């Protein structure tokens, strides 16, 4: 039996649900450390690859909250396939900017924007079956599925993401601390 932490290459999937992709940009801010990362992980489904469906993975990194039916389906796919799910960014952690609509009534919003609003002529609420329907409220990821880790920030910096991932990959409970931990 070996007492050395097994070094095997892990599979990492990423996606943005109701997010702006700012957290993905921040991930890329690790710059050349990306090469070091690629020694430790292979990307599965991610904007950086062209893999459309998430396969069995060790880690899922998700930015953006849940605002429509498609977000729910993708989130469930990730939860099913990834051993560990990380919510990255304000939207994934607490709903973020899209959740600022939550104190309003969705039906009334759709009504005003598409039907009765000023300047609207022959209004119709878009109803193509390909369009995912919005939920009545935007939710953080952990109100839909179990989430294992959270990296707050809008976005978290590249340094924060790097610290978090290296902690995780090297077997330590990730810690951010000052000044890497921030909510804005």
């Amino acid at each position: 039996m070996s007492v050395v932490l097994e070094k095997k290459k892990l599979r990492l999937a990423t996606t943005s649900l109701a997010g702006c992709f700012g957290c993905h940009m921040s991930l890329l801010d690790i710059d050349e450390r990306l090469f070091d990362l690629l020694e430790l992980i292979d990307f599965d489904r991610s904007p950086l690859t062209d893999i459309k469906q998430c396969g069995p993975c060790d880690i899922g990194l998700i930015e953006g909250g849940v605002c429509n039916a498609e977000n729910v389906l993708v989130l469930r796919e990730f939860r099913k396939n990834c051993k560990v799910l990380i919510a990255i960014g304000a939207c994934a952690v607490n709903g973020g900017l899209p959740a600022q609509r939550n104190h309003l009534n969705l039906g009334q919003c759709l009504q005003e924007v598409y039907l009765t609003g000023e300047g609207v002529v022959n209004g119709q609420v878009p109803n193509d079956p390909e369009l995912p329907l919005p939920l009545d409220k935007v939710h953080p990821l952990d109100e839909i599925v179990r989430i294992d880790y959270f990296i707050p920030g809008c976005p978290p910096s590249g340094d924060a993401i790097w610290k978090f991932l290296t902690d995780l990959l090297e077997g330590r409970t990730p810690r951010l601390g000052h000044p890497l931990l921030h909510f804005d």
Partner: protein
Amino acid sequence: MKQLTFLLDGMPVPFEDGQTIMDAAMAADIFIPHLCHHPEFKPQGSCKLCTVKASGRHVSSCTMQARDGMEVENNTPDLNDKRRTMLQMLFVEGNHFCPSCEKSGNCMLQALAYELEMLTPHFDQFYPDRPVDASHPDVLLDFNRCILCELCVRASRDVDGKSVFALSGRGITKHLIVNAESGRLADTDFSLLDRAAHVCPVGVILEKRRGFAVPIGQRLYDEKPIGQQMDSLATRTAKVEVPR
């Protein structure tokens, strides 16, 4: 006359008769998390962030008088766990959206969350529908961020002699109101020069036309976390001067 002391996490802390645990700790530059406490006002004991364990019992250190020989626990994992949970409760109770908040970086609620390593609000968000009062010419009130610390209530009543703010409702519906039948701040005698205009520890009472005046990196809690800012906590002044 022997110096009165109590033990705080095993270290002796001197105090004068009549001082609370919080007062004595602050004087000794020891940080106990707090939100509704302010050295200028009578302690309230409502936020419960300052909860410590004194002689085996949980008490609010801001209202508990220190006693000679008392043993007090402060910086323990269990107490910090409880404090983190209470911060999470505050974060889900209101609408605390930091990325667009004018107080971000200077906010005590946020700074404490960083200090106690709160990574997620954890509980289901309440997403309450709370108003924004922009009626006053100089001051904006964004009730989404109110943590019910009553510092504005105390300042307006005890310092300004105006009683502009009060609390109404009960339980989870408790909320801040202003002293006007219309409910609008503009219909009160509130002024930007009031002490109450500058005591809010979070982003409720905001001076208009002064948003994001300080760049990220130079804000109050950017350089040092709140736990290392005893001097600024102990001597909180009316207004943070900003170079124009």
